[in-house]
């Protein structure tokens, strides 16, 4: 029976998101306030579309540096092309063919450094880190000039191999941009020091379970748990497990728990340093507290109100992004049709679906432009940069007071608290698990010995 009652979504606060799909299109989705009205916000719409639809243009990875002045966006295409564009108007700043364009070797991760690295002399040069399926990680330097003809991407600053065998499928760079982690099919999670370019840590696969069954390593997604701490790593496996690794304590996962029955396809950490959001291949999205490893899809737990995000999501989730200030996550169900190829926005606190946008193609990546603040002004994309500078500076100051100084301190405190609090809930958990006698949760036991 078809649905005859419309499920209405409350609008979402002003937000600007960029989505990247398999046909190589970049779509800009914006939600704006209506006439400066405080509460009433229009539903998000596709504002712009950049690029020509072509299968070889498929965008595999993207990374944004959303500083207020001169923001940049780096993306890797299937054809081996690496492009750096301006996220405000879509102008291509630099475009270069990378040497990894072969058929079975494609880019899986790209990261555009926010911080200028020490080697780069002028302020206009940036650094890019790309990783391919076969495990070739490359640091490239990026020279930016006013016109695209003069700027260039150097071939490679440094290159190293992450793994000798297996396929890398996920990579991430921590908040301080000193460390990078990699994981994949047959590749244990490993952490690299980007300054010295050497491996500083490798995970160890969990032991065989009580039946003597060993599940082969297959990481599908991974991220650092909090921005300031590069020691905690959250990873999702193909075997529908979410694991927390702590470099400081041990090589085996500290916490690991199962979530439903489809492989975990995307993991994103919250700003508070203990919550993670993860999405599965069959369109389930949930959040969990990594201090306890508790998914609150059973809401009777009173300790932490966490749980699944209920919405009409019916396709695999490929990318989740947390908005840096607003309590919003954007997830994009990738794949198609009818019910998917939607961009969806959720409220993180109430776990309510705020709104959704149909984007017609299989989506690969979503990014949020955190500088977008629409208060009855014309959007960034239309206005020229110089005329807006004053506004921007003022906002810049405000923004720094807000999130540049105050928040990180808070976060640090929170993370310290976490560490202290950590032992208690876990012990409880351990007891529970032992009572159940669940063989798959064996990492709990191993972690308890380490503590």
């Amino acid at each position, binding site marked *: 029976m078809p649905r*005859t009652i419309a499920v209405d979504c409350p609008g979402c606060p002003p937000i600007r998101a960029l989505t990247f799909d*398999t*046909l190589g299109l970049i779509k800009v989705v914006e939600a704006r306030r209506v006439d400066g009205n405080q509460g009433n916000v229009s539903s998000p719409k596709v504002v712009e579309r950049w690029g020509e639809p072509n299968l070889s243009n498929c965008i595999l990875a993207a990374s944004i540096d959303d500083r207020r002045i001169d923001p940049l966006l780096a993306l890797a295409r299937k054809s081996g092309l690496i492009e750096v564009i301006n996220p405000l108007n879509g102008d291509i700043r630099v475009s270069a063919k990378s040497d990894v364009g072969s058929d079975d070797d494609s880019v899986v991760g790209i990261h555009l450094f926010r911080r200028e690295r020490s080697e780069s002399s002028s302020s206009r040069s940036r650094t890019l880190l790309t990783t391919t399926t076969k495990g070739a990680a490359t640091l490239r330097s990026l020279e930016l000039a006013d016109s695209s003809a003069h700027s260039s991407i150097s071939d490679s600053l440094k290159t190293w191999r992450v793994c000798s065998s297996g396929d890398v499928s996920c990579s991430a760079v921590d908040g301080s941009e000193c460390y990078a982690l990699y994981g994949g099919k047959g590749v244990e999670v490993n952490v690299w020091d980007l300054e010295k370019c050497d491996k500083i840590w490798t995970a160890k696969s969990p032991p065989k379970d009580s039946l003597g069954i060993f599940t082969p390593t297959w990481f599908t997604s991974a991220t650092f748990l909090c921005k300031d701490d590069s020691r905690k790593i959250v990873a999702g496996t193909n075997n529908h497990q979410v694991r927390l690794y702590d470099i400081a304590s041990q090589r085996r996962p500290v916490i690991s728990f199962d979530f439903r029955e489809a492989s975990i*396809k995307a993991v994103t950490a919250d700003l508070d340093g203990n919550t993670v959001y993860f999405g599965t291949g069959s369109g389930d999205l949930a959040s969990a507290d990594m201090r306890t490893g508790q998914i609150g899809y059973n809401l009777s737990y009173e300790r932490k109100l966490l749980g699944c995000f209920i919405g009409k999501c019916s396709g695999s989730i490929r990318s989740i992004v947390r908005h840096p200030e607003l309590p919003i996550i954007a997830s994009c169900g990738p794949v198609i049709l*009818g019910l998917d190829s939607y961009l969806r926005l959720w409220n993180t606190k109430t776990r309510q679906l705020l709104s959704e946008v149909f984007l017609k*193609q*299989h989506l690969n990546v979503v990014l949020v432009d955190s500088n977008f603040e629409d208060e009855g002004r014309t959007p960034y994309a239309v206005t020229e940069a110089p005329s807006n500078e004053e506004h921007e500076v003022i906002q810049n100051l405000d923004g720094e007071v807000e999130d540049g100084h105050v928040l990180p301190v808070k976060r640090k405190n929170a993370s310290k608290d976490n560490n202290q609090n950590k032992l208690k809930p876990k012990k409880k958990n351990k007891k529970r698990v032992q009572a159940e006698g669940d063989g798959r949760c064996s990492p709990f036991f191993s972690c308890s010995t380490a503590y």
Partner: protein
Amino acid sequence: MGAKRKHSEAIEESAEAEKDHKERREEEKTSRKRQVLASTIKNKDKRSAVYAKLKQEKKRDKQKKAKAREAAEKRALELGEELPPKKAPRTIENTREVDETVCKPDDEELFAGNDADEFSGILKQEVIPKILITTCRFNSSRGPAFISELLSVIPNAHYFRRGTYDLKKIVEYAKNKDFTSIIVVHTNRREPDALLVMGLPDGPTAHFKLSRLVLRKDIKNHGNPTSHKPELVLNNFTTRLGHRVGRLIQSLFPQDPNFRGRRVVTFHNQRDFIFFRHHRYIFETKETKLPEIKAKKTTEKDKEKEDASAPQGKTIARLQECGPRFTLKLVSLQHGTFDTKGGEFEWVHKCSEPENILPKKSWRKQGKVHALCLQDQRYCRTVVVSVKCAASN
């Protein structure tokens, strides 16, 4: 839903009728001193009498309303005014939520997506479809019969016995042998109940629930299909998901039908159920009594028309059903080939989500009433009796 509809209709009623109704009710109230719900009357005779009265009242009301409507129409006609708007009945179709994903013919992104998808090679006739049909591990009775009929429906289809091979191994094998699709017929208790259609080499995997299977021999006056390439009719595959499933189905059949064979295979989508039919058709010119009877009644002008358009009488198409008849319902559509554990789903049917439950509210209500009935003592007693009987037997 019925209750709701009634409620909305009641609102729509003209104010006058409502007033009348109210007045009459009030009269009733005063006459009876207090209002009694008909269902609470325990004496059956009296209860049925009250019901009969209510029914009669309702009927009278309806007649009155119809009369008023007719009178208004007549008056409008006489005065040359605009006719009062006709009420459209509420149907499931016209109260359906508007779907923004419906494919539109002017959508360039759709066509770009079509050119880039997995089936474009077959649909552009660059590749000839070659289908591998296999079964689940245990297969008997209606399963093989169904497969033999599928083989007659789909040209260039080859049946392979499943043996004990993994499906992933079969996919590998089929890729190497240049098959373009795999169909797996899954049977449960000797009855086909699911169909897995897989595009190769990297096409999507669609999992259908299969129900209401009628084989050829069970269809009355069935025909036997020829070996011509059939024509394909795909109805109502309008949304993006539908479009994709439609293209998946389309890629099973050759794109150059033999129109001489006059064989047609239909996939008709209606409210997310896909109905499969297989027909032969024939165009016949009928020179029977029909035109004569018409000629008597019609005027000369019509006669001329008929002569011009169909000099030898009327051409009609006759259908003869052949081959199986079944209904499909999509359960999941998976990106890539068969991989239930690590696969990414483009679409999964999720029944536990609240919005899917919402429209069934009225059903739930009925369920509740039913449950109350079951709690009734009389029913308990009958149940007990039946159990006793069973025990004594």
